[in-house]
């Protein structure tokens, strides 16, 4: 009896384990899409699996691109949008990757490349882009190809990523409101200040409320960094692009890493950055009546609704504004919008565009057997057809390829927003703040324009006197000096 019960127990446990394992096996074969070719049917069809970060661009663009590519090549493309991609990316790259291509922000690609987890994309960069005379490397937006070179496992340098998007950020405005009230688009900071005062003075009533239209709706709670898009451009205009590029190398006056904190010196290298912040401070922090009530504490959804309801004429945003705002309010905006070129710091300033999200990446895992097809898809994304599709379906976002020869006239005619983004991207000097200095990517959220990822926009509105440019400039410099040796050591730089 005892033996029988032991046997029964063992058999039950064994069966249970077998079932579990069998279940796992079945799931793996079902869910693991990496196969290169489908085994069903007489003529195996090539397959490609793509994972994109489920963010402000939606999924329509990737589904459309997948369909277009499939039609063109016969390769079956499966695309999945996922917000948790970054949490499982490393595991996927280290083990059996479920996807052939990943597209997302914040991919730690240099680290992955050094560990031999990413496919070398030299062949892709050497390819000619269909319909152009340029190679893929030449067709990537200026500066993008250079920033995609990293060290591989054996120390050799190769291309390991493709820049995902080239962005624009700044003030998105309500065209209808501007036209109705005869307001001109400000071209300089002084004009922007004057416009803000004009809007407030006009006392335009918001139907159904006792409030008046104000110049800006914004979220200090979770998107205060949207003001960066203006401040960074003013910084670049005041300092010049050469000086900005020098700062983001984070090497000190000696040319070495050890005194890189000097780049935060508010009286020398960082003077213009603090001046740019001061411009913002004068415009927003010192004029609480220029923003919707409590905007510095508002969440993004509130700011979006305020702009959509016509409570504010402008909202600071990135190029994903239209898609995201309409998605948030659940309907199309009932007025036209556009992103204005950021009013220049001074009348003589050069026109610049800060490329928002320029560090976002498209990568191919080393462990996929489908590298060639994956590279072919990325090459396809550089074609005119794909570039147009992306802009159309992502409603104003642009891939990080050269759009100079891309015909967007049909889209621009019907969509003021797309037109404005295109103009902002192509009519100014594009710049980015992605640093190649290891100190920036070995120390998460530490060495960046706003040191230690500490923003002051909301605080400045809540307590203006405690957050002047001189106070926070000195504070950042001190923190940089104290923290620098730590960050250097963390980055393996001594």
């Amino acid at each position, binding site marked *: 009896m*005892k*033996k029988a*019960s*032991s046997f029964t*127990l*063992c058999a039950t*446990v064994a069966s249970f384990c077998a079932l579990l394992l069998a279940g796992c096996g079945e799931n793996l074969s079902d869910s693991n899409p990496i196969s290169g070719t489908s085994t069903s049917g007489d003529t195996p069809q090539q397959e490609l699996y793509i994972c994109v970060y489920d963010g402000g661009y939606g999924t329509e663009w990737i589904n459309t691109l997948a369909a277009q590519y499939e039609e063109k090549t016969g390769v079956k493309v499966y695309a999945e949008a996922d917000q948790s991609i*970054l949490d499982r990316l490393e595991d996927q790259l280290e083990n059996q990757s479920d996807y052939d291509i990943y597209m997302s922000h*914040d991919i*730690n690609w*240099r*680290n992955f*490349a*050094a*560990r031999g987890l990413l496919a070398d994309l030299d062949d892709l960069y050497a390819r000619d882009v269909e319909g152009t005379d340029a190679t893929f490397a030449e067709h990537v937006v200026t500066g993008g190809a250079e920033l995609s070179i*990293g*060290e591989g*496992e054996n*120390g050799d340098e190769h291309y390991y990523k493709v820049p995902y998007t080239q962005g624009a950020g700044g003030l998105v405005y309500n065209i209808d409101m501007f036209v109705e009230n005869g307001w001109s688009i400000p071209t300089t900071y002084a004009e922007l200040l004057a416009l803000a005062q004009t809007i407030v003075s006009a006392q335009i009533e918001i139907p159904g409320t006792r409030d008046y239209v104000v110049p800006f709706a914004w979220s*200090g*709670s*979770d998107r205060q960094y949207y003001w960066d898009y203006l401040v960074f451009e003013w910084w670049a205009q005041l300092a010049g692009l050469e000086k900005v590029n020098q700062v983001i190398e984070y090497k000190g006056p000696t040319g070495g890493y050890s005194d890189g904190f000097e780049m935060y010196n508010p009286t020398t290298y960082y003077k213009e950055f603090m001046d740019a912040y001061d411009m913002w401070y004068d415009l927003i922090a010192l004029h609480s009546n220029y923003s919707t*009530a*409590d*905007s*510095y*504490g*508002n*969440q993004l959804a*509130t700011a979006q609704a305020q702009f959509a309801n016509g409570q504010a004429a402008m909202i600071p945003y990135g190029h994903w504004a239209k898609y995201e705002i309409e998605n948030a309010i659940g309907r199309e905006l009932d007025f036209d919008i556009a992103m204005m070129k950021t009013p220049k710091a001074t009348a003589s300033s050069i026109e610049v565009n800060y490329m928002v999200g320029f560090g976002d990446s498209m990568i191919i895992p080393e462990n996929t057997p489908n590298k060639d097809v994956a590279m072919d898809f990325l090459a396809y994304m550089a074609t005119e057809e794909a570039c147009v599709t992306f802009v159309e379906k992502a409603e104003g976002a642009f891939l990080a390829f050269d759009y100079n020869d891309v015909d967007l006239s049909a889209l621009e005619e019907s969509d003021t927003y797309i037109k404005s983004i295109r103009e902002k991207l192509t009519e100014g000097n594009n710049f980015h703040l992605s640093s190649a200095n*290891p100190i920036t*990517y*070995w*120390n*998460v*959220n530490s060495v960046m324009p706003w040191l*230690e990822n*500490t*923003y002051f926009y*909301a*605080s400045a509105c*809540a*307590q203006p006197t*405690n957050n002047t440019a001189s106070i926070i400039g000195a504070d950042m410099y*001190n*923190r940089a000096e*104290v*923290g620098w*040796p*730590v960050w250097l*050591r*963390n*980055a*393996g730089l001594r």
Partner: protein
Amino acid sequence: MEGTLTAKPNSKKKFLTGTTIFIFVMLFYPVGHFLLMWFGVNINSILLTFQWPVRGKLEFLALNELFFNYETLFLSFKMESTQSMFLASLAYFVISCLVTLPISLFFSYFIFKKIRGNGFFKIIFFIPSILPLIILTIVYRYGIFSNQGILSPMLNALNINVASLFIDQGARWMVWLFCIWAGIGYNVILLTAGMSRVPREILESCKMDGVKPMREFFKVIIPLTWPTITTLFILGMMSVFNVFMQPMFITQGQYDTMTIGLHIYQASGGAGLNEPATLGLFCSIIGAPIILLVRHLLNKAYGDVEF
């Protein structure tokens, strides 16, 4: 000699009894879990503290600079952000052990004694415990700071600027307040369960002797639920190291609300795993003996409770 020879097959036979198999099967999972999820994970973390980045990869340090990462950590203590992070984390000891726990004890007794309105408070306290933290933080934020929120008009009427509540100095108070609000429910569930085990005879005896509720609470209920209180106190102490979601969802770690747990979580998403691993191990080395000592002292306070 013969006896010895015949004994061997018997012991082998005994070894394969149903009880042995049962014990083996029952231990298989926890031991495997311990080896994989504790030893496996932690040994890797410990090894990471002796590595540093070389040309984009983490490699082991030379013997003469084996404690390089620890020296770096000590160097970081000079940084304002590190000091603020430790202070913000230590605050959770006060919040969890010295504020939330006593309040929870009071309300648990209130519910246990079935004082009028206890059913209402039961629901009020229990709801935060069954909802996901992300939902709770959204409810909390929107409740206080939103045109649609219930508390917002009330606070405005009291001339409190709600927009500033989640900014600067106000932010840490709002996170602490949330932790108290959300933490009470969890404690109340465990404490009322502990109190419900107090024998009725003892309580009836107290009643017959005319013991006042306050005296009953301190002299009977607390000693008899001491093991539960000890457990919650220890968990509260551990919150110094593991609170991270509350500040992440409410303030994104801004305005001096960064905690050790949140810093480790964020830094673990980057390339330099040596830094969060070193901080984590340092905290374990400092925290574990303190927690064990406190646990020992708390256990000694009332001795074992058996009823």
